Structures are given as C-alpha cells and as structure tokens.
C-alpha cells in the first residue's frame, strides 16, 4: 500500500528530534532560569516541609505556657524569636502556624477551585439558561468586596479553622468559575474540539477527555496565584478576631493576640507578620513564574 506513495520515507529526514526530557527535568531547568521563580519555589517547598515535619522540629512545645518566661526578647534563653505573652516560644509557634496557613491555603484552593471549576465547566460547556443563571450569580458575588464577604460569612457562621476555610471558599470560588468558564468557552471554539465532533466523539467524552485536560494549566496557575490571597485574607480575618481561634497557633491570630504588645514587645507581631509576607511573597513569585512559563496569555487577570 505504501509503495504507491514514494515520498513517504523521505519526508522524515528533517523531523525535529529533540532530546525528550522528562517533565520534571524541564520543570527544573525552566525554574533555574528565573531567580524569582526559584525563590518562590524554595519558599513554598520550605513551607510545605515545615508544615509536614513541624511538630518534630519545634525546639519548644508551641502550646506550652511557661509563665515565668513571658515576653522574652529574641535570642534569649534559647528562644530564637523570643516568647509571647504566655511565655510560649514564638519560633515554635511560627513553625506550627505554617501548617495552618498551608492547610488553609491548600484546602481553600481545593474547595473553591473544585467547585468553581465545576461551575465554570458547566456554564461554559452547556451554555444556555444555566450559564446565564450561574454567571449572574458570579457577577453578583463579584460585586461585593472579597475580604468583606469573607468577614461577614465568618462572623455569621462563626470562627474556627473549618469555618474560615468555608468562608474563604465561598468568597473565592467565583474567580475560578469565571476564569474556567472563559477557558472552556475558548476551548469549545478550538478547531481540535470541532475535529472531535467531526470524528463522532460523544459530548461527554469531549468534555472529559479533551476539554478538562486542557484546563489543568489555567487551573494550576490560578490556584497558585489565589493561595497568596487566601493566606493574607485568613490573617486579616483572624486579626479582626473572627478567623482561626487561639490557642491554635496560626499566624493571623498570633498577630491578633500580639497586637496589644506592639509598643512594648515588637517581636510578637513582627515575626508572624514576616512569616505571612514571606509566604505570600513565595506563592506570588511562584505563581507569577508559572503563569509566565505556562501561559503568557493569562496575564492581567
């Protein structure tokens, strides 16, 4: 059969033969080219490691109140970052607090991301009245300031780790729904989707096998950029007394508890504040880098 097509072998002479690198190695070689991406990645890795092994590496029990040692300044009696108003080691509490931030960031992004993505997909793929209704809801929610919304919800449903995650997720899903919907809309119009229809692939399979895999990139980018927002929002809400409640050491409530000491014992709010800044910075740097490498088009959202 092939014999009737004499050229077929020849065409190959120029085929590009790139060394096929594994995905991880391309990831790292890309990363190593951007110092800011690298920094972000290192911060995130550090954060995750800390949140995993935190309980085993804290020099002191983060919950144990040693009253006689309260408000020690940094670098005294083995307390690297000093102690708080109950004599608890701030360094240990920051280490443990990392876990809360990671849990909140990740859990919120998972819930908000999953829910928002599903809504976005439904809206974008099936269109129709459902789309109109859902997008109106999104519009409505977007017409209310995020932090205020989170605050109101949290005040209403009550404080605590679980509730702050819920309220952040309720506040956050719309962004995902918006972005994913527009991605789906764009994908729907792509020729390769038309090509699938032409092949006879069923709608369900098109959705699952062709649209969803192409959404991973925007989801990951968006998620990485949102985490920073959530971490800061959690801290803000905790600061106002609604979020994660003591004694759970979360950075936001460390700040909230320490804010009365700002004039006398600066270290109480300085270090948890720095922890938040560094985390948000790391996540943002990494997210920016991801966006720039994976999808130069998504800028500005």
């Amino acid at each position, binding site marked *: 059969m092939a014999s009737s097509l004499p050229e077929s072998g020849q065409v190959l002479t120029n085929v590009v033969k790139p060394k096929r690198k594994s995905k991880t190695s391309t990831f790292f070689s890309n990363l190593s080219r951007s110092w800011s991406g690298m920094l972000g990645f290192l911060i995130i890795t550090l954060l995750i490691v800390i949140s995993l092994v935190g309980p085993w590496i804290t020099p002191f029990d983060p919950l144990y*109140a040693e*009253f006689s040692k309260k408000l020690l300044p940094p670098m005294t009696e083995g307390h690297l970052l000093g102690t708080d108003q109950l004599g608890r080691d701030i360094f240990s509490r920051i280490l443990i607090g990392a876990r809360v931030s990671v849990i909140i960031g990740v859990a919120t992004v998972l819930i908000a991301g999953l829910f928002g993505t599903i809504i976005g997909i439904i809206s974008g793929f099936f269109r129709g009245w459902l789309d109109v209704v859902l997008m109106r809801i999104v519009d409505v929610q977007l017409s209310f300031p995020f932090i205020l919304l989170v605050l109101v919800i949290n005040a209403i449903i009550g404080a605590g780790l679980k509730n702050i995650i819920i309220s952040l997720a309720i506040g956050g899903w719309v962004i995902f729904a918006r972005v994913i919907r527009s991605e789906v809309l764009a994908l729907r119009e792509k020729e390769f989707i038309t090509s699938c229809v032409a092949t006879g692939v069923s709608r369900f399979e098109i959705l699952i096998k062709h649209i969803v895999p192409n959404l991973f990139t925007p989801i990951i980018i968006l998620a990485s950029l949102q985490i920073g927002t959530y971490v800061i929002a959690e801290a803000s809400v905790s600061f106002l007394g609604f979020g994660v*409640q*003591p004694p759970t050491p979360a950075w936001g409530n460390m700040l909230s508890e320490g804010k009365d000491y700002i004039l006398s014992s600066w270290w109480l709010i300085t270090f948890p504040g720095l922890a938040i800044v560094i985390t948000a910075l790391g996540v943002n740097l990494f997210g920016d880098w991801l966006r720039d490498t994976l999808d130069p088009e998504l800028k500005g959202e």
Partner: protein
Amino acid sequence: EGTSSQDTESDGTTDGSEDTKDSIVIGFESDAVTLIANNDVNYTTDAQIRNIYDPLIERDGNTGEFVPALAEKWENIDELTWRLKLKEGITFHNGAEFNAESAKFSIDYILDEANQSYYRSRWANVEQVEVLSPYEVEITTSEPFPSLIQRIADDLLIMEPGYVNEVGTEQAAKEPVGTGAYKFVEWSRDNYLKLEAFEDYYKETPEIKNLEFRYIPEFSSRMSAFLSGEIDLFKNIPVDSVEEIKNAENSKVEEVSSSRINYLALNTFHDGPMQDEKVREAINYAVNVDELLESILNGFGTKMTGPLSKINSGYTETEDYGHDSEKAVELLKEAGYDPESLELTLDTPNGRYPMDSHIAQGIASQLQKIGVTVNVQVNEWGNHLEKIQNREMQDMYILGWGPAFDAQSTIENLFTEVAPYSSFYNEEIEEKIYKTNALFNQEERLAGYAEIQRDLVDKAAWVPLWQQADLYAVRENLEFNPRVDEKMQGYYMSWE
C-alpha cells in the same frame, strides 16, 4: 454661687491655655450607642452619658455604697413600696427644673414598651411611679423587689421631660439634656463626643471645662495616642503594658479593684464529669489561681475564694481550696476518672475580660500538669454568650460578672436553675437562695447568704478566680481616682 468659674469664662476656654489646662480627652474603645438615657445596657454608653445625666442615687467611688445624688433619701415603706425624697433647686442644662415629674418620667420611659428600653427587662416588677409631691415619688412593685435601690443606682438616669417631649426621643438621643456636670457640645459618631462643663451644676462647677471622649478601638492605637499626648486617660491597660506606661514620661497608672469578678464555670447542665462533685473539687485543687494571677495578670487582680468578692455587701469568708495537684488526681480517681484519659473542653471569650483567653490557656496548661487534656475553645463574645444562654456549653468556661456589689443579684443570677451564668445548679441551694431573697431583715439575709456561700464552696460550684483590677493610664498631673463601679466622671477629675 460658683466660686472659681466666673473668671475663667472667656472665649479662650474651649481651647485651654498651655499653663492652666482645663480640658481632658479620654480614650474609649467604642462609641456610645445612643446618648439618650435609660435605654442601652452597656458600659461604654453608660460611662459616657453619666457625665451628662445624673442618677437619683449613686455609688461611692471607693466603697460602692449607695450615696444620695439627685435623691436626698429613700425609704422602704413596705415590701412593695418605696419612697424617695428628691433634692430641690436643681436645674437641667436647658434651665428646666428638676423635680419628681422628671424622676417619674425617666422611670416611665424605661417601663414604656414603645421606647424599647433594654433596661425594662430588669424593671419589670415595677408597677407604678407616683408623684407624691414636687419632690417626692413613690414606687410600687408587683412583688417584693429588694434590689430596687440597686436598679435605681445602676440603671436610672434622669432626663428632662419637657425637652424630650418637645424634640422627640430621636433628637434627644443625639443632643441630650440632663442635670449632669457636663453639657453636650458635639458628637461625631465613632469619632468623638465633646462635652463642656455645666456652670450651674448643682454640686459645684466642674474644674475640667472641656471633656472629650475619643473612640479608638485598637489598644495599640489608644496607647500610641496616650503616649503622644493626644489623650489623657484611658481604661483597661493590658497588664503587660502597665510597666511601660509607668515608665513613660508624664504618665502614671491608677488601679482599683473592680466589683467585677471572673470565674471558671464548671458546667453541671452538661452531661459530663462536671456533674460529679469530686471532679469539680479536683479542678479546684488543680487550678493554681495564684500562679495565674501572678504570671498572667502580673498580680493585677484580687484573689477570691468563694462566690462573692470582699467588696460585695454580703461577703463572708470561705475556705480556700488552695493548690494541690496530688489531691486533685486522687479525687479524680475516686470519681472514677483516669486523669490521663480525661479530656475536657474549656470555652473562653477573647478580649472581654483582662487576658481571658490567656487565662484559659493557662488553666489548660495547669490541668495538663495533672494529665488532663483540655481543649481550649475561643469564642467570639456574642457566640460565647449565646452558647451559655442556650446551655450549649460543655465542661467549663470562663466568664465575668459585674457589677457584683450585693449578694442577692449576684447569687440569684448565678446559681439558680433559670440563670445559666454559672451553669451550676443544686436543688437544695436554690431553695435556700429563694428563701433568703425573700427575707427583709438585713441580718437574716446576710446570715442566709453566708450559708449559701459556704455551701457553694463545699459543693465546688465553680472555681472562683479573682476580682478584676481596673487599670487606667493617666497623665501624671491629672487628679483621677478610679472608681469601683468603672465610671469615668469628669466631675471628679482635675489637673494639678
């Protein structure tokens, strides 16, 4: 006639000259809700408007005893009837005269449902107010109401009926008129309240001519404002900042033992170990109040051993459980609990009382030492209160009570079945409480309350903690004596 006021009255007074300062700015954590009297049950509102309105009876700033204010004297005619004799020759800021009508009007204001006064809930037993003569009123209650005088002293402020009727309550709530030491000048919501001395004040023209309350919700901002000289006085310094203020130039700290008490409630409404007297005793032994007081409150507070504080009129000395970990463990074991596997919940508000959530964490650490695991749950105040009232609390919680000047209102509201605030209930004790409450003989009453106090300690009804210490940051040269009733009266202040 005024002695010193006339000569200072000029245009310059409002600003206050450099040398003879005659104005004062008080930092406050939040605004008054309304400026009308007898409506909002709230310390911040009351503390401020008490400079504008006067009560019939007030408390002595040092002892908390009742002293005459607008009323000259009061007597108990029978169990249901009270008669008050009012002072004469007192005028309101608008020139109107104070008399029995104003007193009746003010009480009726509370009682009139249309006004939606939240005080009415405590005045429900008052049946009617009668003007006997221009300076005499009689109050009739529907059932014996021994704490009426306390209500009159703590709740009731006198308004000018003519003014309120003329401008309406809404306007009166914005521009109040009273007989108080200060006249209203300007109110900017959430910003400041400005008052000026009332020249014709019935006692004496106040020395401080201009009184301003400024609202600063964050402590650190309040502190900055104080350190930078923008405010001269504020209440509730966190104990850890006391030293700093003491050391700051031109500043001092004033302290007073308040009538407000803090305690650790052991919830017998909840199906759990706290229903067992032995466990409650064990907790009493395990909690080291002295340590908490010393290390968390830096000693600011007065330790209590029973249900009432020393300042309470019905106080009797009770035995102190003291701190004894071994005994605590023993008692727990007797009660059938292995301390190591006992897990308790401790609820606390955050920022309502001095170091409250920290105290809770401190108690948790102390119980940890005998092996008991305590999960501290910090609640937003509204939720905390709701949980108590809905009886949804679990094992233990922290709460404060005040003003706790007299035995009846404290004990009745804390240790009966209908009152959830200690969440301790014992049928026999309750019976005693009701019996004692109904007594009119002062001595019998005191004896009754003394017995109840001992019973409550016996049954380990709660873990008494302390009387709160009220701490004030004060300008060095400001004459200011903190009051046991937490009020801040410009009238009693002066610059040295």
